[in-house]
Structure formats: structure tokens, C-alpha cells
């Protein structure tokens, strides 16, 4: 009964929404032009990156905070001692992974650099790095994480702190994240470099921390 009512409700909602979506809409503001006009002073050439790290860079700053926060919550939820069972590892895969890992890092650097003028950037680069870590973990080359050491905690936080420091430092320019056009490109690259490493670590951390085998009960 509950299922039926809910299902019907959801269907009705979708119908209502689609009906409304198909109506003509009075768009009053179009940001496409604004983005295009300000690309020159954004410091990058790819519009999405410009929005992500410059025009709406503040969103991204908080978003990194969310990601870091999620990692901390995962740490906080369970402080179980792990019993990392050795996985069945295929030696061929292991060799492959050893070869792939440096390649993956190169790809990540490329993506980071490419982000300035075509699709790509810190997130994708970080994700690729994380993927490499997951791959190494799955092939048994990288153990899952326990409580991270202080060095690792610095690494996890560095990207965010660099971003925050740049953002706050630019208060001297009159506003948070107010890049001077001349240095915008360099600063964004700095932020992205920091983010790539930290994002890679955090995303990998999400996986490596979760894949700890919780003991019976802490």
C-alpha cells in the first residue's frame, strides 16, 4: 500500500515537473555572455575551469572542505583495528600496475595542465591519481590506511589550506579570491597543483579508509 501510494506520488510529481519544464520560460539573465566577456581576465582559457576556480571559486573552496570533512567523518566513525586480509594477487596484474602507476601520474599532470584551456583540471587529475592508488591497493601493492600519520594529514589538508591561504591572501586585493588578472593564471595553477595532490589523497583515502576491515567491535 505504502509502495503504491509513494510510487504514484513520485509519478505524479515527475509528471508535474515535466509539464512545467516544457513550458516556455522568461530567462532574464544569461551568464554565457558574462563568462565569455570576462574570460580574458580569468587567468585560464577553459570556461568551466574559469567558473570553477575563479568566478565561483568560493563554491569550490567550500566543496573541498566538504570532501575533507567526509574523510574526517569516516575516520571519526570507526576507529577499528584492521585485519587486512591478504588479497589474492595476480603477479601479472601486479607488474602491470607497477608499470601503469607512473603512467597514471603523467596522465594526471597532463590533465591538470590541460584544465587551463580544455576539459580537465584538478578534479579529474585527482581522480586519476586516486584511481592509481586504488589500483595499487587492489593489486596488493598498497596497504589500506589506518589512522593516518601527521605527514599524511598534512598532505590531505595541504591542497585545501593552499586554496584557503590564496583566497584569504587575496583579501589584500579587496575581496576573497580577488585574483589580479596578471597573476590569476599562476595562482590558479598553484591552487590546482595543490588540489590535485590533496584530492588524489582524499579520494584515495575515501577508498582506502573504507576498505579497512573493521574488527568485530571496537
Amino acid at each position: 500500500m505504502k509502495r503504491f501510494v509513494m510510487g504514484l506520488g513520485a509519478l505524479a510529481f515527475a509528471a508535474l515537473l515535466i509539464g512545467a519544464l516544457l513550458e516556455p520560460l522568461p530567462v532574464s539573465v544569461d551568464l554565457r555572455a558574462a563568462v565569455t566577456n570576462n574570460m580574458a581576465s580569468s587567468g585560464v582559457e577553459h570556461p568551466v575551469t574559469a567558473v570553477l576556480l575563479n568566478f565561483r571559486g568560493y563554491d569550490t573552496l567550500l566543496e573541498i572542505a566538504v570532501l575533507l570533512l567526509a574523510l574526517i567523518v569516516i575516520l571519526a566513525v570507526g576507529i577499528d583495528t584492521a585485519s587486512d586480509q591478504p588479497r589474492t594477487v595476480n603477479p601479472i596484474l601486479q607488474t602491470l600496475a607497477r608499470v601503469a602507476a607512473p603512467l597514471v601520474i603523467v596522465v594526471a599532470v597532463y590533465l591538470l595542465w590541460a584544465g587551463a584551456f580544455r576539459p580537465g583540471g584538478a578534479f579529474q587529475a585527482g581522480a586519476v591519481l586516486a584511481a592509481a592508488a586504488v589500483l595499487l591497493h587492489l593489486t596488493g601493492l598498497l596497504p589500506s590506511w589506518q589512522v593516518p600519520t601527521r605527514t599524511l594529514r598534512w598532505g590531505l589538508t595541504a591542497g585545501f589550506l593552499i586554496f584557503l591561504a590564496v583566497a584569504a591572501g587575496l583579501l589584500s586585493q579587496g575581496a576573497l579570491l580577488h585574483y589580479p588578472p596578471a597573476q590569476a593564471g599562476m595562482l590558479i595553477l598553484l591552487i590546482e597543483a595543490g588540489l590535485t595532490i590533496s584530492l588524489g589523497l582524499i579520494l584515495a583515502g575515501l577508498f582506502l579508509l573504507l576498505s579497512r576491515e573493521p574488527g568485530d567491535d571496537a
Partner: protein
Amino acid sequence: MIWLIVLPLVWASLAFILGPGRGKWLAIGGLALQTVLAFDLATKIGAGGTAVGHLVGGWGAPLGIDLAADGLSAAMLLLTQCIALPLAVYASAYYKRDDAAGSYFWPLAGFLIAGLNALFLSADLFNIYVTLELLGLAAVGLVAAGGGAQQVAAALRYLFATLVGSALYLLGVALIYGAYGTVSISVLTPLVTSEAPRLVWIAGGLMLIGLMLKTALWPFHFWLPPAHGGAPAPVSALLSALVVKASFYLILRLWIGPFAPLIAAAEWLAWLPAALGTLAIFWGSWQAIRAERLKMLIAYSTVAQLGYLFLIFPLLAGAGAIQAGVMQVFAHGLAKAAIFAAAGVLIKATGQDTIAGLAGAVNRVPLTLFTFGLAGMTLMGLPPSSGFLAKWQIIEAALAQGHWPLAVIVLAGGLLAAVYVFRVLRQAFLLAPRNEEATAVSPLLEWPAFVLAAASILLGLRGVELMQLVGIVA
């Protein structure tokens, strides 16, 4: 004002780097600084009589993200820092060394407070979504941290509620962006008219429902009692006092801001939250009266007290309703932080969380019971207290606009609150057989709670400045 966001982010990250259980001095220092900043901001806005803004990145809306602080946001910021600072002192004494639940308290609390401050300052709907997620995930993390099965289950329930709430809100933002091409509140407000397309109505509904879910308005309250009742005391205090208020603030902000033309076109809409608020008052009070565990009683009291906030919506057309709402936010925030903190002390002192176990508590921790009584006065709306002023203002606004049933509800709710508050006090005054020797309780636990309770009373003697500040709405 920007430092109110940056500072907690900094101390939260540094506390994380320092390692589990560390960073309390950073946090207390940071919060002290933030309190000064919030006072400064409030004075500036109060003296200038206008809102202040900050264009992030120097772009300005609609391309960039704007931050804005008017009297309403300044008041919320002030409340946040003023509650968080004593609670930080409290928490520093609450968590023992090596307490698993406290290992990551400081970074999580830092992100929570950053989320709150960012939310109160933001003038951009999508940016608010990100702050909501920051706030929600931090809150869930605090509930779950190091807890047992019940706590984890409560956290999961809370997590899904807050995620669905955010998703509804996000869909609303998506529709708004689709319809108007902007998510800046200041750009959006003049564009919305009563002839807005259907999509905008749906967007408004989705956003408000999502936020009501996060505010635990009846019937969306199901997640609150287990989460607030099950978390450690400092966490319950932060959550009940501040986190639910953030989404209420947003509802109010949207209601009197961009969506005002829609609501003016359909006035009956305002009675919907009021009706739910009424049910919340009665249901929450009833459950609190029946509760057997002290913290559950307090958590249900939160459900009831949040109900009052929604009574103001039909009154927003007239004067004084926003002030009444903010006074209730302050009253409940201060009192509930105090009462949860006091409950934490009582539980530590008596070693149990049942109301029956409180017998004789008055002789063991008199200051804490006094705190409980003072905060209870605010919850009951007895004078002199900020809760009394809040009720007075709601009743007066209701009478001024001829909506006397709202006044009756407020008065009846006060009596119900008296029943559950005195249930606790009465038990604590009972003679108890002298059993196990009293556990010593740190003054660092008792005094912050007392300070909060005293603040909730003193605000009831002088609310003029706050009300003038709130009057400055952008």
C-alpha cells in the same frame, strides 16, 4: 566578516593535522576571536543601519558569488559564536583524553561552525547548497563519531534526512537557474513576480520542503530525537541550538525575499507552516512529557520549540513577526544549549540517562540544576527570560493581526512545556537515598552551561538592541 568563515576553516584543518583529540586551544582561541568579530559586525550594521556586502572574487552577482550581512544574518552570526564559544569550553572538559567520540570533535565542530557562518553570510542559492552540505555532513559526523550501534543508526537516519533535504533544495535551485538564469538572491528577488511560471512555484515548494525536512518540522521530525538524544552532550547542544536554526533562517530568508511575491499571491500558504508548527508544539511536548530518558525529553522539547518558529509565517505581513521569530531562535538556542550541556553534567553525575535516576540531583550538582531551571524558564516562556519575550511578541503580533488562535496555541504550549520541565526539576528535588558517592564534576562543565542559561535570562531583560538589529533587513 569574511574571517568568520575563514577562521573556523583554518582552525578546523589545523586541529585535524594536529591529530586526534587535539586542537581545543586553537578552537577556543579561534572562537573567541570570531565572537569579537561577530560583535563587531553586529555593531557596525546596527550603527550604520544598512546591510554590508562582500563580492567574492570581485566579480559581483550574477557572475560571481555575493556575501551579504544584514541585521538578521548578523544576529544569527552573533548567536552562533556566542553559543559555540561556551560549548567549546564545555566540550574541552567533556571529552576525556583517548575518548574515541572526541577524537575528531574539534575539526568536525570547526567545519560545522564554518558551514553555519558561511550559510548566514551567503547571498547565492547554489553556494548555500554547498554550505548546507558542509553543515549537514559535519553534523552527521558529530552524531556518529565513535558511537555505538544506536548512535550510528541515528546518524544514518539523520544523514538520509539531510541528504534528501539538500537534494530537494538543489532541485529547486536547478529549476530557479533554469527559469531565471541566476542563483544570486539579490538579482533574483526583483525578477520573481506573482505571475511566475509554474516551474518557479515548484522550485519554491521543493526548496521550502527540503529545508523544513532539515529543520525537523513536524511531520519531518522523525530523525531529530534519536540524533539529538543519542549524541554526546556537546554535540546535542550544538545541533539543537544552532544547526536546525540554520535551515529555519533560510526558510525565513527565502520567504521574505525572493518568494515573497508568490506567497503574497496565495496567502493561505502561510498557514501551512503554522499548522505544522502547531502540531509540532503539541506532538513534541506530549512526547517530551512521556519520555523516560532525559536527553530524549530534551530532544522532543526541541521538536516542540521549533514549532513556535513556524507560527510566525502568517504574521509576516505585519510588523514585529521577524523580531518575534529571531527572539525565539535566540531564546531556544541559548536555553537548549544550556539544557543539553546541563543534561550532560547530570548524566555524568548520576551515571544514568533516565529521569527517574535524577532523584536527589539537586544536592549533588546544585549549580547545574539551577542552570536547568533557568533554561527551563526560557523554554516555558516564563518571565524574565528571552523565551517570554519571544512568546510575548508572537502573541502581540497575532492579536494585532486578529489571529488570536495563534496566541492561544502559544499560551497552551507554554503550559505543556511547564509540565515536562517541572517533571525533571521535581524529580531532582526528591530526597534520594544516599547511594554511591557523588562523581565529581568539573567546573568547566558546569559553568559554561550556566553562562548560556544566564544569557537566555538576561536577554529577556534587555532585547532592544537585538530587535533593532534584526529590524535592519536587506
